[in-house]
């Protein structure tokens, strides 16, 4: 067997290793119920903003607090140690990476999906005559 063939086999082995580790490292999208089962363990939760519940950013503590509803319909208070993201109210969907605690779900990272710009044109024309 040629040395280069051995190298290729080792490469493939490392590739398989990388796949296994990645699958292991990858989190799963869960609901708050699942995250609450093991507080402190990190999960990715997709939900949307509960627009009826109050939202509060305490600048002095740099704590943003809001209520999110996950895809299973469960509500949870969420803490986020960053200022309120722009256009947060308009978001259609919020992806939260974080962990559960007794008092709230602590989000370390938040990504939002906002409605596309297309609707703006209708809003723009909307207040003209119609």
């Amino acid at each position, binding site marked *: 067997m040629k040395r280069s063939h051995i190298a290729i086999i080792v490469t493939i082995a490392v590739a398989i290793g990388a796949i296994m*580790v990645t699958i292991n490292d*990858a989190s799963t999208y869960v609901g708050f119920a699942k995250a609450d089962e093991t507080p402190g363990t990190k999960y990715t939760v997709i939900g949307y903003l509960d627009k009826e519940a109050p939202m509060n950013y305490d*600048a002095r503590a740099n*704590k943003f607090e809001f209520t999110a509803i996950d895809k299973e319909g469960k509500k949870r208070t969420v803490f986020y140690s960053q200022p309120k993201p722009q*256009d947060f109210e308009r978001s259609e969907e919020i992806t939260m990476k974080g962990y559960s605690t007794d008092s709230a779900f*602590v989000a370390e990272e938040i990504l939002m999906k906002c409605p596309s710009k*297309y609707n703006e044109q209708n809003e723009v024309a909307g207040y003209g005559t119609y």
Partner: protein
Amino acid sequence: MEYVGEHLLPGQLGRLFVSLAFVGAVVAAIAYYFFIQNKQNSFKKLARVSFLVHVGSVFGIVLTLFYLLLSHYFEYDYVWKHSSMELPFKYVFSAFWEGQEGSFILWLFWHAVLGTILMFTAKKWEAPAMIVFALVQAFLASMILGIYPFGLKIGSSPFVLMRNVPENIGLPWTEVSDYLLRFPGFMDGTGLNPLLQNYWMTIHPPTLFLGFASTLVPFAFAMAALFNKDYKGWVKPAIPWAYFSVLILGVGILMGGAWAYEALSFGGFWAWDPVENSSLVPWIVMVGAAHLLLIVKNRKTGLTSAFFMTLLSFLLILYSTFLTRSGVLGDSSVHAFVDLGLSGQLLIYLLFFIVIAFGMFFYRYKGIPKSKKDDELSSREFWMFIGSLVLLIAAFQIIFSTSIPVINQLIGPEGLVPMMSDQMAPPLDAIDHYNSFQVPFSIVITLLIAFGQFLNYRHTSAKKFWKNISLSILVGAGITALFATAYDFWQEPLYLILLFTGIFATVSNIDYWLRIGRGNMSIGGASIAHVGFAMILIGSLISNAKKEVISETNVFLSEDLPSNENALLELADTVKLGQYMAIWNGMRDEDNKQFYDVTYYNQEADGSLKETFALEPFLQMSDQMGPTPNPSTKHYWDRDIYTHVTYSSYLEPRTDDGYSGEVEAEFNRGDTVIYEQHFIIMDSLQVNATMNEETGEMAFLKLTAKMRVINVLGETYEVAPQYILEGNMLSHEDVLMEQQGFKIRFSDVNTENNKIKITLWTKVPEDEKPFIVMKAIVFPLINLLWAGCILMALGTGIAIWQRVKREK
């Protein structure tokens, strides 16, 4: 119906150019095919003319779109969405490629330029290589066709009028002939995303797209070689192009990092974002391919791998185009493009080239010459080959992790073939995940870079090798010890090893060029580029692993909350930030930007403060994005102090009479809401209404909410905010509670759920000072990274130049 004020001619011209570009590319491909079949020069002539028509049309598209943008013709959807009247001229370029259509055009443009050069220089490779070029261009042109045969969407045109955009067809305003003059919203565009109003955005996209485009040239040569069954001749002309690609794509990616560092506020130059990854991966593979091509040229071995990686690099460009533009990344990236509904078309584009490239590769596989003999362990080619494999595997790891959303689409619970029970999400700590692989890979790569040049092709005598390299090992170890002590690396073995291999690679390449190679310029390019690459890695390692968030406050709100990485600065107050004392001196409003002037002081031995430097981070205000933080950085030769404002009290909505902290709550009878340590209970709703006898309409409506406010001591206050509607006039009778500092307004009625809306404010204390919340990070030795970028680009450039010169 005649519309007023529209300029239809340039749009029609633009669409004509797009169709011509598409047809020109298709005809060129077919004509080249016939030329190969029956060798008639008339076909070659036809093919060349068609391709030139295509090139001319692409230039026409570019000029037309610029014309539309510069003329502010907002009836065009693209112009309306990506520019505005007040957009400075220098950002018109950024507006041009902000959207998907514009960036496709940019890509088409570079392919057209490179294709023309190739057409006149490729000689015997011309016909098959240009078929590949023309096919790629036909696919790209189809992405901006914007036609709808049989209800299918093919491409998205940048020349479509706003009223003809499918989403808008049938809307009432499209029936108004003078809509452009009537609605103020159409008189100006929505403007360019403020994040892109930065000089880096003027140069980064064109460089990156030239980099993307450049990978097509080696790909076309490889395809032509497989087609012609001339497996070796393509290598020589392809090498300079492969290194050109390494150079331009590398610079393009690093410019993206520089932009992120200068203008974005995630605090760093690289975040392993899927969009960044998807341009990095083809570059890594191209670096591997380029080195394999060198082996082939010098030793005639490794041809199969060279073919494979050259083909793969361009295919990865297509794959990353698919990833970033099809919307598949959705939840996992902050800056992927918006889905334009082209995912099907992009997938066909990708699959078409995967099938023909790998189809051709495996069809010809048997014919590709392979060496019988094994490379020696002491030969340069063996370790270059290993290096390429390591690069391939590093690229694979990145692209696999980035592709998790694609895996979900394929085998997730809602995917094509549901095999997994849960949706996979990207790793929670992306940076940790990628680093855990890429740090070991970097160690191997830098080690190979360090000793690779000291090996000869074929065979190296051990004695000579150790004699030559021992100096670099010693010097490298010495410098590493200094750095490790200065930046405290002794506790982290993996980082320490990378620090050593990186420094070893830097030292040995300088040594090889100046001492062994006697400063000969013909080998200098490679050495300089290797030094640059090693410095990039050392710079990233030190600036990332040893960055210090000096604004971090060790105040924990509760045990399980992360510590606060942001410091609060009240106006004119002194706050300690790491080794500095900082004072925020005030805010200046200028051109929709709020500048926050923060001065940093050093504390002298006697306790006095000495001004060291001042920074001006700003918030860019825009209707589109709201306030966007823009950092400001003090550069020292050995470290950067990076600052951005995350929040400021100027952003808080304040009423004219000095109330803030607005909260809106909905009440039904009997509902309780807790606000600022008070219970607020709604008991009943009183309705007073009078009808207009003649019209039967409501003439007067007064709603009174009877509420109780109870404080922590149990003291109860009765309040009754009112909502009054007289004819069309709406007014509120607010309740002011001086002692609590509350203002309570009955603001609205929600007719959907029959609840009433109450807005609450708190009085801002007279003596409250304005404040900002900001983040400050020290990045040590980040300049090594930028210097490394410049050296790598310079070295690669020299190497290409030397090679081209030698060939002549």
